[in-house]
């Protein structure tokens, strides 16, 4: 276990490494480079970094034009503005022509904290997942975040990467083999499965420990790629454990829970529960306070597992 680090910080470091490897890597930001962590790239490769100012629509349109000219473009701002404000440009100028733009959105979810509801994107996964050609990735820790960035750079086409503001522990070792679209089984168990994404993977692992002390063994899956979703790992979990709880720092409408349910109902219907934001807006507060208030902690996962296996 290394020191705590936010996934956005890992993103920033990965970008610098990518910039050294590949001259076609271009980074765009919208006056948030010190927050999205594109600042490191901007200093090392100032000729390939474009600050577009506070203009997220033009951030995405310009990214599309650079990609249409052969560049590998990373476009960053907060998730609220990347997926929300610029949605239709991401749809029509990036996804429709399937251009090579990586929308790397930071400060996603309610763990943005004190900034409050206006800045807490809780619907970005749902929005991005609905777009044809779009890949959606939500890494849980700095190691997988960094690996994800290297993988999306190799992949040709639009990708949405959801990154967090808060520091998180490393779950993985540097030897991690990260594959887009392949969920990772972190803990095996037969009584139920918790499928989590992003920061909620940490809560799921904590929940598994608590449950284990109560004699309940659950499977924990890190579903870092929400689209294309790993159907195989879900179907297997449904068949072998008979109950699934999903956990996401996102609305329960349209996010990971929905994506998993779409697979489950088609292939192997089992009971499900969804931990996530229950169709309400966030508010100001410390990240851990908000997670408690909005019922997305390890305790909530424990409760859901206990209910579902009853």
């Amino acid at each position, binding site marked *: 276990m290394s020191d705590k680090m936010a996934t956005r910080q890992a993103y920033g470091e990965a970008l610098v490494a990518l910039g050294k490897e590949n001259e076609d890597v*271009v980074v765009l930001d919208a006056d948030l480079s010190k927050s999205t962590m594109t600042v490191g790239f901007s200093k090392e490769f100032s000729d390939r970094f474009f600050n577009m100012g506070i203009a997220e629509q*033009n951030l995405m*349109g310009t990214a599309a034009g650079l990609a249409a000219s052969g560049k590998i*473009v990373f476009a960053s701002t907060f998730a609220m503005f990347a997926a929300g404000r610029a949605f*239709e*440009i991401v749809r029509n100028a990036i996804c*429709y*022509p399937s251009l090579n733009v990586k929308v790397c959105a930071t400060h996603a979810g309610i763990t943005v904290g004190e900034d409050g509801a206006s800045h807490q994107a809780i619907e970005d996964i749902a929005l991005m997942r609905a777009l044809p050609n779009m890949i959606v990735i939500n890494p849980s820790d700095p190691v997988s975040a960094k690996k994800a960035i290297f993988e999306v750079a190799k992949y040709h086409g639009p990708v949405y990467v959801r990154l967090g503001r808060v520091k998180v522990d490393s779950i993985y070792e540097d030897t991690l083999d990260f594959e887009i679209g392949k969920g990772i089984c972190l803990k095996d168990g037969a009584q139920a499965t918790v499928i989590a994404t992003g920061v909620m993977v940490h809560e799921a692992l904590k929940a598994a420990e608590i449950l284990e002390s109560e004699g309940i063994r659950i499977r924990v899956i890190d579903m870092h790629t929400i689209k294309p979703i790993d159907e195989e790992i879900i179907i297997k979990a449904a068949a072998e454990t008979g109950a699934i709880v999903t956990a996401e720092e996102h609305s329960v409408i349209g996010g990971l829970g929905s994506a998993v349910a779409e697979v489950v109902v088609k292939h192997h219907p089992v009971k499900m529960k969804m931990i996530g934001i229950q169709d309400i807006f966030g508010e100001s507060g410390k990240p851990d306070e908000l997670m408690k208030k909005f019922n997305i902690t390890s305790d909530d996962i424990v409760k859901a597992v206990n209910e579902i296996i009853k």
Partner: protein
Amino acid sequence: MVVDYQILESVAKNIRQSIIKSVHAAGSGHPGGSLSAVEILTALYFYKMNIDPKDPKKADRDRFVLSKGHAAPVLYSTLAERGYFDKKHLMTLRKIGSMLQGHPDMKRVPGVEMSTGSLAQGFSASIGMALASKLDNSRSRIYTLLGDGELQEGLIWEAAMSGAHYKLNNLTAFLDFNGLQIDGTNEEVMNVKPVDEKWKSFGWHVIEIDGHCFKEIIDALIEAETIKDKPTMIIAKTIKGKGVSYMENNAGWHGKAPNDEEAKAALVELGGEADVR
């Protein structure tokens, strides 16, 4: 380079006839704002741009982005006339399975540089293309065409600001200033004037011309290449529906196809035969 105006005039006539035929065959589409831009596209594709229809993706080519994507018929007709694809495709416009979608799709049509249709996005993409050209030290120049109603989109001004900020002198935009949009005149719907002062204050080099006069278009294109530190906006005063008398200056022909009789009359007026096929 000597300009053969007679050839350009005759090409423009062919393109206008193709617009009428394709929109008539489709039974829907946007003839008004296509006809107003014919001379601009003709000058770009038949005089100015460094392109090769046989090698549509060649390196260092100049690029044109139709930001007012609803004028797809003028782009398709021009590309076909220039030899990017067979003219027979024009009769499949907007039909199921056709490469000629209602709005331009870069994945389907050779020569289409950017998928457009949602207004202002093509202009924004042209900023990215101009930045890429600079990064690559390419001589590739980027051209784009905006509609006047399109100036009402906020994204236009975001992109305008960035074009001046990054001193994109390799970017030349045309404004197809015909004064009409779906619901009426610009003045009635949402005034866009003073257009010249707006672009000047946003840091662009501004040239005002008659958008149907080849000499003025070409002179403006040559002038744009001499500008060292800013992008150029060529404000082209045009007539919506230009060349077809019953369509001229009539907002009703923004997005409506002519029927058989109307199409035949238009073709005759454009110096063609009364044959819509």
